[in-house]
């Protein structure tokens, strides 16, 4: 299986662990990731916040590149996007550049662009669940987690084209498929504060503290994510957030791809986890994983 791949800027840097885990499990699953040649930043929050045209055209350039032939073959039908914000921006650009105001922009898309997939929804499709299930060697027995989806993977539904946007189930299905227990909880899609970690850190402290409190309350041992921005905000500041809330938050924050890798016995999985700040190993040891 071959798909086009748009990693996005943070997967080259602070989310390298996420990038490695995606590459690692795709290799095991015989999925070839063909990076869009010469891709550029999607513009992220900054572009859409202060310049609409820039936000559509920056993202649109990548869509155009994705329609070019890959490695002397035809362009792939699917475009896989790990970062939910990149996903949101690319989808928004596709809608704008195909919509009734498309003449307004200086980028023209060809008639067909690949289907744009947010990575958790991609791996939660039936055929992908079956593909992973065949490779599961160490089911994550007794692993109790909540799945945290954040904002952009499923919102707004007109852009994400997702039906279960208030109670998404993609990560829950993926967890069940590898033997873990996904606990139901009400904060699946509540915001973590995102980029305000830099500009208004107190927002993140407040929002993430709420998430931790609820995760503890429902008996979760860990939080599973598919967004590197959520991962960073939940993983990196636990000591500080604990101090501000007067509580003790100590919870490993895993990418779902890392857990798939563990369950499939991919040897490098421990290396991916070593990039985390909140200790991801103690829980796994306790569970004999």
């Amino acid at each position, binding site marked *: 299986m071959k798909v086009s791949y748009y990693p996005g800027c943070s997967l080259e840097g602070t989310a390298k662990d996420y990038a490695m885990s995606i590459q690692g499990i795709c290799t095991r699953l015989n999925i070839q990731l063909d990076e869009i040649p010469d891709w550029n930043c999607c513009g992220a929050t*900054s572009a859409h916040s202060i*310049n609409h045209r*820039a936000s559509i055209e920056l993202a649109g350039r990548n869509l155009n590149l994705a329609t070019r032939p890959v490695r002397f073959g035809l362009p792939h039908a699917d475009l896989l996007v790990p970062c939910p914000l990149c996903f949101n921006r690319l989808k928004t650009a596709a809608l704008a550049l195909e919509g009734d105001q498309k003449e307004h922009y*200086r980028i023209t898309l060809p008639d067909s662009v690949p289907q744009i997939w947010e990575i958790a929804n991609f791996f939660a499709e039936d055929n992908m669940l079956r593909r992973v299930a065949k490779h599961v060697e160490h089911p994550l027995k007794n692993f109790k987690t909540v799945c945290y989806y954040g904002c952009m993977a499923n919102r707004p539904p007109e852009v994400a084209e997702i039906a279960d946007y208030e109670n998404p189930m993609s990560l829950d299905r993926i967890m069940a498929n590898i033997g873990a227990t996904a606990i139901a909880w009400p904060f699946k899609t509540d915001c973590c*504060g995102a980029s305000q970690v830099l*500009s208004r850190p107190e927002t993140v402290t407040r929002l993430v503290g709420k998430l931790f409190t609820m995760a503890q309350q429902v008996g979760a041992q860990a939080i599973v994510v598919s967004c590197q921005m959520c991962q960073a905000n939940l993983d990196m500041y636990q000591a500080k957030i604990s101090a501000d809330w007067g509580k003790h938050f100590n919870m490993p924050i895993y990418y779902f791809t890392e857990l798939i890798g563990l369950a499939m016995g991919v040897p490098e999985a421990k290396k991916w986890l070593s990039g985390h700040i909140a200790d991801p190993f103690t829980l796994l040891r306790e569970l004999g994983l």
Partner: protein
Amino acid sequence: MPETTTIYPDYQFIQEIESYGPFGAEACFQCRKCTNGCPVAFAMDLLPDQIIRMALLGQRDTLLSCNSIWICIACETCTTRCPNKIKIAELMDGLKEMAIQAGIPCPQPQIRTLHETFLENVRKRGRVFELSFIRNYMFESGELRRKWNDGELSYDLKLGLKMAAKGRYLFRPSKIDGQEEIREMLAYAFAGKSKL
């Protein structure tokens, strides 16, 4: 007695806002679902439903100088839940763009500086190079000084060193062939609008 203010409506202003959309703001019937679901309403001076109301009443100065349009994190909860399909988060973006074009001082300067340093980074290389972006942001926003004064800097520095030791930073920025294309794209989009 509740405080009263006199408002002089300008029913044309909404057309100007909508030219940045369309957002469909005129469909609002003030159910306040947007505000009830907003995760950052606690930090806003005007609540999302009030923003829409003020927009329909044409309260230009109030809107373009308020905190809320900058506080909005674009989590899209309001847009998702609006029974009248108003693109509320997108309208907040439109107002930010209008405020910048009108040269109105931003009441949340760190947030505006974050967006500008981020896009400056994109302009330079085509992709964001996190280390230089964060360094530039910390200097230009004054956050470095604030963190130093508040004693928060040591936490960040320790975290930064830990991240470096764990190999989480890219030390050599990647450059793309289409760099000139990106520069031209941003120059056109920002022409005469702001400093980028």
